[in-house]
């Protein structure tokens, strides 16, 4: 940790760099009514090079949201509907023989874009999921003998439908852990839905403008890493993560039989990164406990395994996080 960091200077820099956040929010808000959490999650994913696992019933504007974000940034967007018969080559691309050239040509798959919506990722078997998750991790794809680097920014937003679990291939814990955030979105509020209904009935859709360049996003990604995080906040994050592993050490003995495994070190890293990014979105050069609180659920909810006992008592990982957050003293 750089102890000589000048907070005033940093604050000014962050304020300058994060100026586009408001512009993005305004543009996205023209099309997406409500779903503030979804938009925030997308921004965090975008600015931290993370990926998002999205859970919500169909029809909550998931596709529209990411498509709009791509338009606002003037980036390339692709949507892939995962089905049981999808093959890794359908995602990554393949070699096709050209009779005219008498040679194999590379046909790149839909993953060659800046924004990917992997719709209903759990509908495809493990080999296809692995292909996507590998690309997410490595940020490169090998077709034949050639390796292609994926463009920056590269944001995958995978969706899972919480209903209709029959015939699906649930993502293993190790693969779910690779998603930085798991965001659960709910139905819009009644006044929001009224607005959505009106817009659709009138058929008047606002057009969004590209207000941010990809270079600005890449520069903002660097700025996010510079956001100052005090040792107290680091300790707070570690306490939260360690409480998921050893609850008894934090006066949370009652949670011990409910947790089968706690968050991994990747959880601590992502919680720190997401908190920094949240501070950046709020145009602050330093992290405060509110930033950690704002992202802790999305970062940890898919990283805590619950036991059968917890399931029998209808206790979810979110309940466990709530309990931990309410018990760990804020610095």
């Amino acid at each position, binding site marked *: 940790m750089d*102890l000589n*960091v000048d*907070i005033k200077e940093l*604050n000014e820099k962050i304020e300058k760099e994060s100026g586009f956040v408001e512009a993005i929010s305004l543009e996205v808000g023209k099309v997406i009514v409500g779903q503030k959490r979804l938009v925030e999650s997308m921004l965090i994913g975008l600015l931290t090079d993370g990926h998002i696992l999205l859970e919500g019933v169909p029809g909550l504007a998931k596709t529209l949201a990411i498509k709009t974000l791509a338009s606002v940034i003037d980036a390339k967007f692709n949507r892939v509907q995962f089905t049981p018969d999808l093959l890794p080559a359908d995602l990554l691309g393949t070699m096709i023989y050209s009779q005219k050239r008498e040679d194999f040509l590379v046909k790149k798959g839909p993953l060659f874009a800046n924004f990917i919506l992997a719709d209903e990722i759990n509908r495809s078997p493990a080999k296809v999921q692995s292909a996507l998750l590998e690309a997410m991790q490595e940020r490169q794809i090998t077709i034949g003998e050639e390796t292609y680097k994926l463009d920056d920014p590269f944001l995958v937003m995978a969706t899972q439908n919480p209903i209709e679990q029959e015939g699906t291939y649930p993502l293993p814990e190790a693969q779910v852990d690779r998603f930085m955030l798991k965001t659960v979105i709910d139905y819009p509020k009644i006044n929001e839905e009224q607005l959505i209904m009106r817009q659709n009935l009138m058929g008047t859709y606002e057009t969004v403008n590209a207000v941010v360049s990809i270079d600005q996003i890449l520069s903002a990604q660097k700025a996010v890493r510079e956001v*100052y995080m*005090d040792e*107290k*906040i680091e300790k707070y994050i570690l306490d939260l993560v360690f409480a998921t592993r050893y609850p008894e050490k934090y006066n949370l003995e*009652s949670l011990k039989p409910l947790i089968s495994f706690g968050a991994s070190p990747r959880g601590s890293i992502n919680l720190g990164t997401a908190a920094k990014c949240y501070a950046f979105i709020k145009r602050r*050069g*330093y*992290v*405060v*406990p*509110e930033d950690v*609180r704002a992202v802790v659920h999305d970062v940890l909810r898919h990283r805590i395994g619950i036991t059968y*006992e917890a399931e*029998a*008592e*209808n206790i979810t990982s979110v309940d466990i996080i709530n309990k931990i*957050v*309410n*018990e*760990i*003293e*804020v*610095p």
Partner: protein
Amino acid sequence: MGLIAQAQDVVVKTEIDSSEIYIGDHTEYTVTIKQPSDISLKIPEYKDTLTGGIEIISQTVIDTLSEESGELVLKKKYTVTAFDSGYYHIPPYYLEYETGQGKKRYYSDYVLLKVKRVDITPPDSTDVIFDIIGPGKIGYSVGEILPWVLLVMFITIVSWLLYKYLPRRRKKEEVEGPPIPSEPIHIFIFRELDKLEKKKLWQNGKIKEYYSELTGILRYYIEIRYSIRALEMTSEEILEGMLKEQLDDELIKILRNLLQNADLSKFAKYKHDTETNESVMADTRHFVKLTYQEFETREAVNTGDEVNSDKKEVSDE
């Protein structure tokens, strides 16, 4: 007693235990034959009935007894019953003997059996119409009751086991708060602030520690005074909680300013000037004093007491 049918040396005798029985009652009809041991008699076989209406329930095998005189005594018993009332003549029991020149037959006499109805009508109530008698009640046997007893025991045991071992929804755990001081909270807080001031933390460059301890004391005060879990809350959450307490705008403003300054110092290494470092201490004292007075006023209004003006004056020094 039936009559004796006798011809030379063969005697057939029949008798009935009771000449009067109720419908369905049982009685024994006994046949005794006395004969020389050197002759063979043909004895009739009855299977179901002795005569129309007299039913055989069971019968013994012929019991043979040799007497000293060289004669044989044969005895056979029939358990009989009848289901119609009336008088029955049980026909003579007859035996046949093949002499070589012809057949000889030996007969017993008739036996009379009277079968009676159950007399339910009292003798002096000939004109009275009685209700139909309901079915009689038969007591339960152990064999009938035992399965039910076992079933109830089984259900009880299974229920108990389920209750004991199945995980149940946990009761809402009571939230444990910090220890409450024995003296009034505002007095305790003023003392803690005095101690902090004496430590001279910010004067020695320990600004972060100074703000951490100051907000720690302030949070503790809020937690005890307003029962808000301020120690586990962020600054924004505390402000939200205090807004719900409907505090004066001035108090909210003081608190917001205090928490923001503290956050800047604690999390952004911001070095406030001397004036700010001194003013936050004064503001904290002022906040405690004002909230204490407001709390007392509220309490007094709630209990209907007059606010004691002497008590209201609290020194923040």
